[in-house]
């Protein structure tokens, strides 16, 4: 049992949207949709990223945000980064016959493999993909192949103008899903959860917290008594009900518990 980064060569870099790139890495890894890996830039930092391709080679899909992702974006094909994983539980779609996926922004990354897997299993799938603007709609083409794709944008430049959650509410009023899978900003997820509770639909939400060990030792990623790295990142409605911090609080690197707003600010 070891958890050490191994260096993987960047084989290909795909510009997905103006702010998002996919890095294809020369490393073999089997993982379930929703599992993640830790990506290490020696001398800089190490951060968690969902796997957007698994098997003979893997990929991570990254939005440029802070110091780490800027450094990652500066790399070229042929450069190497450290990878350890896979970590986390991944999505559970056992028994699901009809599903709805809600993805906000970079949240399309964790659900890509899920959607592809559900398609393979011939599970009926509705996908709501949201972004600030049309150009930032991640994995539009890939997701369209896996089910009915509905796009919402904040500025209305593509699909419907508005939020993913408005679309979800509409669907839930008309249709019955075995499960709603969602990933995106926590405010959005919080709303998704409320809707699922209201309509009594099962849900599985992919959460994010600042991580250190990623294997359940340091406690950094805690949401109440749950560990996002080990018990999650995907949580069921039953678990979310026991998580008053969900949608409200998160822990800074110091382990200090703060409001989600303060948490987001800290990361800026």
């Amino acid at each position: 049992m070891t958890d050490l980064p191994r260096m993987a060569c960047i084989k290909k870099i795909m510009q997905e949207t103006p702010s998002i790139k996919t890095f294809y890495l020369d490393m073999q890894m089997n993982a379930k949709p929703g599992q993640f890996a830790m990506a290490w830039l020696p001398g800089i930092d190490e951060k968690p990223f969902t796997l957007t391709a698994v098997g003979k080679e893997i990929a991570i899909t990254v939005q440029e945000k802070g110091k780490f992702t800027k450094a990652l974006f500066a790399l070229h094909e042929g450069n190497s980064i450290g990878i350890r994983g896979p970590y986390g539980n991944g999505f559970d779609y056992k028994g699901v016959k009809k599903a709805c996926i809600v993805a906000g922004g970079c949240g399309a990354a964790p659900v890509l493999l899920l959607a592809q897997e559900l398609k393979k299993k011939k599970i009926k799938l509705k996908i709501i993909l949201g972004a600030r603007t049309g150009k930032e709609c991640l994995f539009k083409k890939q997701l369209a192949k896996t089910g009915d794709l509905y796009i919402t944008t904040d500025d209305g430049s593509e699909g419907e103008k508005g939020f993913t959650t408005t679309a979800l509410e509409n669907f839930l009023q008309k249709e019955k899903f075995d499960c709603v899978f969602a990933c995106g900003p926590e405010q959005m997820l919080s709303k998704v959860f409320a809707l699922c509770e209201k309509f009594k639909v099962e849900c599985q939400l992919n959460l994010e917290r600042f991580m250190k060990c990623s294997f359940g030792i340091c406690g950094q990623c805690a949401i109440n008594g749950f560990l996002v790295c080990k018990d999650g990142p995907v949580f069921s409605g039953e678990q979310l009900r026991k998580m008053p911090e969900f949608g409200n609080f998160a822990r800074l690197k110091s382990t200090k518990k703060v409001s989600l707003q303060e948490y987001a600010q800290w990361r800026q």
Partner: protein
Amino acid sequence: MLSTNFAGIELKNPTVLASGILGANAELLIRIANAGAGAVTMKSIGPSERNGHNNPTVIAWEHGLLNAVGLPSAGCKKMEEEWKLLEKSPVSIIASIYGANVPEFEEVARAVAEKKPAMIEANISCPNSEKHGQLFGTSAEASAEVISAVKKEIGKIPLIAKLTPQALNIGEIAKACEEAGADAICAINTVQGMLINIEAHKPILHFKKGGISGSAIKPVAVKCIWDIYEAVKIPILGMGGVSSGRDAIELMQAGATAIGIGSGVYYHGPKVFKKVCNEIREWMQKNNYKNVKELVGIAHD
């Protein structure tokens, strides 16, 4: 059979969650308590907010863990909510504290003592920050100075001095702490080490050096506990590489009254506490021991 008394605190079993493992959050501490630990130790608390180091901060290699988390802390005054939740803990809480100097230790001790944890552990042995801890734990005088200062602040709350195996003579340090007023000794903190990723040709931990824990350091722990047992009369909270009942019994026979488990949580999850307790019980039954206290120090002639 497993119930014991550690420096005046009753424990339903001798296993204790080590400091720094899942312990920054009250609900996780309670989760571990419910998983079977006899007591739980909070992540070390400092005087003010501190981020610790960049990642990688914890890695697992072939024979243990290596970490340089770097003593992150919300700071001793920003933990109201944790303390409130901890009131519901089914087992005793040990609060671990650190400081860069004696006044800082005093400040933290004062703030923490107000919250009335069952015990306070002074971490004078952390290897993962430039300024904190290890300085104290490798010098008998410095250790004694911290311990007597903290003791004055915390009154009747039992005080544990957590020592480093890097000390040249850990028995001497323990003795100095005992004389300075420590009610118990905790040993060991991690052993200094480093690992390099040869493809990256860089140390893997961002802080470069870190502390080794887990199975690799068990013989170091046994040796240190042995030396401390020969040097002091106060009880020992032994830790280092325990993930089975046999490991725990080995540390007890060397002189430990209670047994800390840290890295064992990596290998077996929170159920490691039940596992270790069950294995201790089975071994005791097979070898005709009635009470876990009988095991303490019996490897000494």
